[in-house]
Every structure is written in C-alpha cells, then in structure tokens.
C-alpha cells in the first residue's frame, strides 16, 4: 500500500516571492540617460590646407576661461546666444552682411534656401564644462527652432509629429552647422 506523501505547505511561497520582489525592486534602476549627441570630426592631417571660408559666412563663438562669451568680437551673454545664432543662420539673400545663401532641392520639402553660414565654436582649456554644455545647448536650440519653423512651413506639423522620412528631409535642409575649432594651446594654463 502506497504511503501517503504529506503535502508540502505552500503558504510561505508568497513570502519568499515577496522577498525576491523586494530585492529586485531595490536593485532596479530604470533611469534613462539623456544627452546631447554629437559626432566628432575625423582627425586632421597636419599638412592639410585650411579651408578658406568667407568672413561673412562665419559666426565666431569664443568662450574664455572665465566663462565669458565673445561672439564675432563682441562680448555677449548666454541668454542672447540662441537668438544671435538663429538670426545668423536664417537665410537672408538680400542682406550683404548675412551669410551667403544657395538654393537646393530636397525630396519632400522641395526647393529651399539654405544659408552657407557656419558657427565656429572655440573654448579655452579653462572653460567650465557646464558653460560648454550651455553653449552647445543654446546652439542646438537655435537649429531646432529653425527646423520647427521649416516643418511648420512645409508640412504644417510640429517637428515631433513628422514621419521618419519627413524628419530626415528637414534635417538635411537645416543641417547643424557647428564646427569646433581644433584645440589651441596658448602657453600653459
């Protein structure tokens, strides 16, 4: 006659499961990282000739070691930088002092007037990282606003409602033209 196997008491199963749950609840970190994504330029050859860019096509942004801004030789402030950059990058074909413009045709958006302007960013080795990020952010904001305007004009939709192809077309029509100068060592800090 088969012996009756006593049934295992499973009432503590819930407690064990709760213990495990508490462990994973505490160790989990669902924080998502956000940041400004950039592409570094490939290293330059020493004997490479400098590409000549017309002066009216360049907006020079300098940040010194005291986190002060100099935009085209004039002192400026971080709160003004976005509007200055936006004004500079907005194509104005009839303005002699503004960057040159050219007409280009893209899929979906058609013919657009593009500015040949480049924003050149140079910082000192003593610039604080917070200031550097602020400058990068304000420049990115200027370009994003231009993209938003183009998106509203061409598709009558906000930038974040566009399809993938439309976003790509806008990004091509309004490229982020920020060039970081090669680091220069002025003596020792």
């Amino acid at each position, binding site marked *: 006659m088969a012996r009756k196997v006593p049934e295992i008491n499973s009432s503590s199963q819930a407690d064990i499961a709760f213990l495990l749950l508490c462990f994973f609840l505490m160790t*989990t970190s669902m924080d998502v*990282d956000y940041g400004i994504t950039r592409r570094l330029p490939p290293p330059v050859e020493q004997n490479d000739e400098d590409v000549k860019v017309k002066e009216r096509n360049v907006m020079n942004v300098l940040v010194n070691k005291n986190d002060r801004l100099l935009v085209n030789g004039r002192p400026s402030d971080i709160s003004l930088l976005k509007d200055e950059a936006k004004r500079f990058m907005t194509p104005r074909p009839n303005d002699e002092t503004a960057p040159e413009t050219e007409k280009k045709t893209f899929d979906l958006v058609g013919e657009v007037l593009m500015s040949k302007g480049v924003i050149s960013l140079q910082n000192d080795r003593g610039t604080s990282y917070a200031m550097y*990020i602020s400058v990068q952010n304000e420049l990115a904001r200027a370009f994003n606003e231009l993209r938003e305007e183009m998106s509203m004009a061409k598709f009558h939709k906000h930038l974040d409602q566009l399809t993938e192809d439309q976003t790509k077309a806008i990004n091509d029509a309004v490229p982020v033209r920020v060039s970081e100068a090669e680091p220069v060592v002025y003596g020792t800090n």
Partner: protein
Amino acid sequence: MGKFRKEGKKEVPQVSTSSLPDIVYMLIFFFMITTSMRDVELKVKTAMPKASEIQKLEKKALVSSIYIGPPRDAKLGTESRIQLDDAFARPADIADWIQKERDSRNEADRPLLTTALKVHKETRMGIVTDVKQELRKVGAFRINYTTLKGSALEN
C-alpha cells in the same frame, strides 16, 4: 418582496489568496528583466549640467561611459580625473579601453558604439578636450554629452 430575502446573516466570502504568489511572480519577472545593476563603482563625482535639447540614449548595450570629475575621496584632491571602468585612468589609456570595449561587442554592433561622457559640471574643458582628441584618434566619433533635463541657462 420579502419572499426572496434570505434568512440569517449574510457572509462575505473569503477572498482567495491562492493566486497571490502568481501575481508576485509576474512582478518579479518584470523587475528581473528590466533591472540593470550598476556595473561600476563611481570614484569620481558626476553632477552633470542641465540641457534641454537632448535625445534619449537608445540601446544601453551599445553605450560605454567615461566618467570625468573630481575624486570622491577628498584625499585625492579636487582636480578632475578620468575614470574608465573601475579605475582612474590617463587620457593615453583611452585608446586601449575603446579597443577593449569594441572587442566585447559583436562585429555588427561595433560601428554603432557610442561613448557617453559623464562629466562633472565644474570640470575644466582641458581634460574633456584631451579625451575628445583621444577618441578622435581611435575613430570613436559618436559621443554623447550626458546631461540632466532642464534649462541650460540655469547651469
């Protein structure tokens, strides 16, 4: 109609708890899958600056982080240092480290590798520039300045 009214006190039936473990197990599996345990012990402070024009860092498996900031251990001074994995490093070590990070991913993913720079906001740009120059030399062009969400004007 009193005809249908039951006689005697109504008893509330006991709620069955036999499915409780199953529910809890489901939660466990959820957390087990989403959990990612901190893989490095931070030796430097990384209070990151704020920015608003930010993108989400997709695919965490393809991101390797470089931490730069003043050491947590006050004995080591306040000058910003670079941390790769679990140890302090010099800018010259970055080339080898990138190579190691590339080797640990499968071949198809290697060009998509992003380097996240997690830098303390009071760090001077000199050391960050050195790191960026090293990254350029080894062809790790995709970088991400990891920041917090907020207005950059508050930095």
